[in-house]
């Protein structure tokens, strides 16, 4: 009976959200780092004096027909389930045109919180779920076999929603057949993983991480008392109170609490919030902390900045922007 009630409640909750005609999460397929590295789709990037290699997605998409086969096979079944896949290629083009602007904006805050290409991609493409796709073609004498590894990653929390690994038949059949067989092989498991994730999302909200950093110019330590609305409260406790009031079911974890840093993870935020016009909009970590930033600024009269790192991670700096 209890179970039945719980289900009814869940269904009701789902229904309530359905009535609000909420925005669907967007999904994007991205070749895995390991795949890019194995196939030489990497570029050397110099940042802060060190040379690092990062995946070159546009080359991977342009030069590898197999990955396009896989992406279109996946796009096909996702479209059938009313979840069109966001095109990585189009996103990359958009980012390219934006890159000049981005370069000009660099250095404004000393480039200390630079994003990796993937983080930037995640943030600008606003994909809620990244499908990290890796596959390898093995030769078994005259036959070939595809081994695949598809991870669906929550772009907000970077947590793996569902992992699917397996192998295709070993056959002399055309490679496209083997690749499509792989996609059909993991399709339903993958969809079931997504369903599970959505169920959790509706019940408990999105999961993000918020980090608050203290700059030297900040007049107080985080473990010191500050004056809020005429009362003296510990800064860290005050912040925690805010999270208790503003998370789904008050769920979050304080991971670090020190004089210079507060870190909150598994922060469950609502999927949507209403904008000024009262329309439901999906929010990310950056949107979510805006009221908090405003509040700190207003109450304590210090400069506060917020820097998103992807959709589900945001750094708030107190004492400087």
């Amino acid at each position, binding site marked *: 009976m209890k179970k*039945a009630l719980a289900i009814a409640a869940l269904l009701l909750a789902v229904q309530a959200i359905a009535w609000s005609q909420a925005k669907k999460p967007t999904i994007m397929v991205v070749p895995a780092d390991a795949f890019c590295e194995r196939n030489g789709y990497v570029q050397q990037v110099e940042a802060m004096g060190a040379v690092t290699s990062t995946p070159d997605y546009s080359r991977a998409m342009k030069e590898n027909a197999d990955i396009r086969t896989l992406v279109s096979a996946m796009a096909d079944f996702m479209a059938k389930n009313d*979840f069109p896949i966001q095109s990585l290629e189009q996103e990359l083009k958009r980012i390219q045109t934006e890159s000049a602007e981005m370069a000009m904006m660099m250095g404004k805050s000393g480039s200390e919180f630079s994003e990796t290409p993937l983080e930037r991609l995640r943030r600008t493409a606003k994909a809620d779920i990244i499908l990290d796709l890796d596959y390898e073609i093995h030769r078994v004498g005259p036959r070939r076999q595809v081994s695949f590894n598809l991870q669906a990653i929550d772009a907000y929390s970077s947590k793996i929603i569902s992992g699917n690994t397996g192998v295709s038949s070993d056959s002399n059949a055309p490679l496209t057949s083997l690749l499509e067989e792989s996609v059909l092989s993991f399709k339903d*498991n993958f969809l079931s993983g997504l369903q599970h994730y959505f169920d959790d999302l509706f019940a408990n909200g999105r999961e993000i991480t918020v980090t608050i950093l203290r700059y030297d110019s900040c007049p107080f330590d985080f473990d010191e008392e500050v004056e809020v609305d005429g009362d003296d409260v510990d800064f860290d406790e005050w912040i925690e109170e805010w999270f208790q009031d503003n998370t789904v079911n008050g769920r979050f974890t304080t991971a670090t609490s020190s004089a210079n840093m507060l870190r909150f993870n598994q922060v469950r935020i609502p999927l949507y919030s209403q904008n000024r016009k009262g329309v439901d909009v999906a929010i990310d970590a950056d949107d979510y902390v805006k009221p908090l930033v405003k509040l700190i600024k207003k109450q304590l009269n210090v400069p506060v900045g917020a820097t998103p790192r992807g959709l589900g991670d945001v750094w708030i700096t107190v004492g400087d922007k």
Partner: protein
Amino acid sequence: MIALTVLMTVSAVSVSAQNKDRRKSFQSWDNYEITTEKVGVDGTKFVKVWGFGKTVDAAVMNAKENAVHACIFRGIPGSATAMSTPPICPNPDTLVSNEDYFQTFFAPGGPYLAYVSMTTDGVPSGTDKRKVKGGYKVGIYVQVMYDNLKRKLEHDGIARKLSSGF
């Protein structure tokens, strides 16, 4: 008149007994083997499934029911080159809470037959046809129209759509 009444009572009792039997078997319906043969063509599951019946034909029908049952409630185990398939209704309470729906769905000649097609060449043969106590046990190759079945159950409100809630 009395005879008629008695006859009707007897037949009613026997019908209700049959229903009871069926309901009983419905809830303990889990005793069958199913394996993924290969990755099926788009939208289908290609499996080998076993059924039991007093005759070979009855066993074949039972195997078809089992194949659809597995897709809805139990899922299909994978094989070396095919991943496992999750059930369309993973919630264990679905069968009980929608019993009437599934009684109709799995009735003899019921709608379930539209989602399963046997690909065994002719009748089950060789070791796939076994005489067992009380009848026959047969193994058949079938294609289950998994995607169509899923859509049907979503449409009928039994299974939830992936996009429901958005």
